[in-house]
């Protein structure tokens, strides 16, 4: 057993867990954050993607104790109260989901992807970057559309903020 303490969605949390506890199970079972899903459990499908210290990782392939001391963001941490995050809003607008199971991982992968490509995204890049996220409904077309739309909205938003700051 180890004492695990980390920041999840901006909140300091701690708890004891066996060293073999996976981060996704710690989030779901110890913290009740069930938005992060376990899909394949073999590091392939990406339903469990969360951000650890600002980077998208598969939380089914990381021990909770490895993340101790880190800052974690899950799907529950994206919205600002009732205001959806631009990527969530774009998934809703463009119907980037069918059954919704892969959606939390898709959205966490998408926000990471958009942050890594401040120069903007094109369809080929989005599809290549989604290598590690699988949608069993095969609803990729609208997922890609949603990510491209969110990337544009967020670029405008950041320019707007830059203007305000200037």
């Amino acid at each position, binding site marked *: 057993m180890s004492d695990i303490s980390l920041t999840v969605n901006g909140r300091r949390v701690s708890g004891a867990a066996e060293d073999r506890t996976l981060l996704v199970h710690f989030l779901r079972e110890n913290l009740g954050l069930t938005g992060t899903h376990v899909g394949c459990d073999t590091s392939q499908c990406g339903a469990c993607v969360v951000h650890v210290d600002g980077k998208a*990782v598969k939380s089914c392939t990381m021990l909770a104790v*490895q993340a101790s001391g880190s800052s974690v963001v899950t799907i529950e941490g994206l919205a600002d109260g009732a205001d959806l995050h631009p990527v969530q809003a774009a998934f809703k607008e463009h119907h980037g989901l069918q059954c919704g199971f892969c959606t939390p991982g898709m959205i966490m992968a998408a926000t990471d992807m958009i942050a890594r490509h401040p120069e903007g995204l094109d369809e080929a890049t989005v599809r290549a970057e989604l*290598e590690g996220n699988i949608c069993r409904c095969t609803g990729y077309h609208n997922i890609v559309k949603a990510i491209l739309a969110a990337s544009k909205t967020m670029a405008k938003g950041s320019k707007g903020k830059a203007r305000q700051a200037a």
Partner: protein
Amino acid sequence: MYSVNYHRAASVTEAAKLIKSGDAKLLSGGMTLIPAMKTRLAAPSDLVDLSRIKELQGVKVSGKTVTIGAATTHYDVASDEKLKKACPALAHMASLIGDPAVRHKGTIGGSIANNDPAADYPAALLALDATIVTNKREIAAGKFFTGLFETALKDGEIITAVTFTAPAKAAYEKFRNPASRYAIVGVFVAKGKDGVRVAVTGAGDDGVFRSKDIEAALTKSFMAAALDGVKVSAKNLMSDLHASADYRANLIAVMAKRAVTAANA
């Protein structure tokens, strides 16, 4: 997963002490070890986490000499601006491993210590004639990769860095399994001051190897056309449900041609 005791090492010296406890294994990105533990193919008593050791992280380029810390992630290798100038082929190769989330965790040291017969780094390091630096000694890549999942590492020995001289030209071409995305054949071609080296991953019965026939042809002329008529032997190549040995032998020549074209581009 079986029960395990986790230790986070703050330095290589501390890790070297911790690794002596029980049946311990070193943990870096965990992109292979954790799935292996989940399926109980690996069941270490203890894990010694190297991923937070600062001295093991980062890419250094000094003139033509490139040094990559063992705990540097694939993402950091792929996006390092200095490396993209010194050896763009290696940065590109790192960008082809797994997927973005895997590249954020997986490390060069972990990949070569595991020496998966379909991993990308072994081909790159063998072709680049790299030196693998451990906490005990330096090992030439040619002596490091000794077989399927086998290396020259001794019990408790810790890889600290990989170093090589940037080649004049190099490229990596990978023919991927459409499902797993691992290399069915991956060929890394490098033209350095000591000649041409060509290493093949994904295909060998005994893991990564150098293709002497292709090297000989490319030494005469470093052009894709130099490989016309070069027949790679299917002897000692893998045959499995994804590809027969003959198919892989043909793919090696095809991938080598593409790599030479890319290296000359």
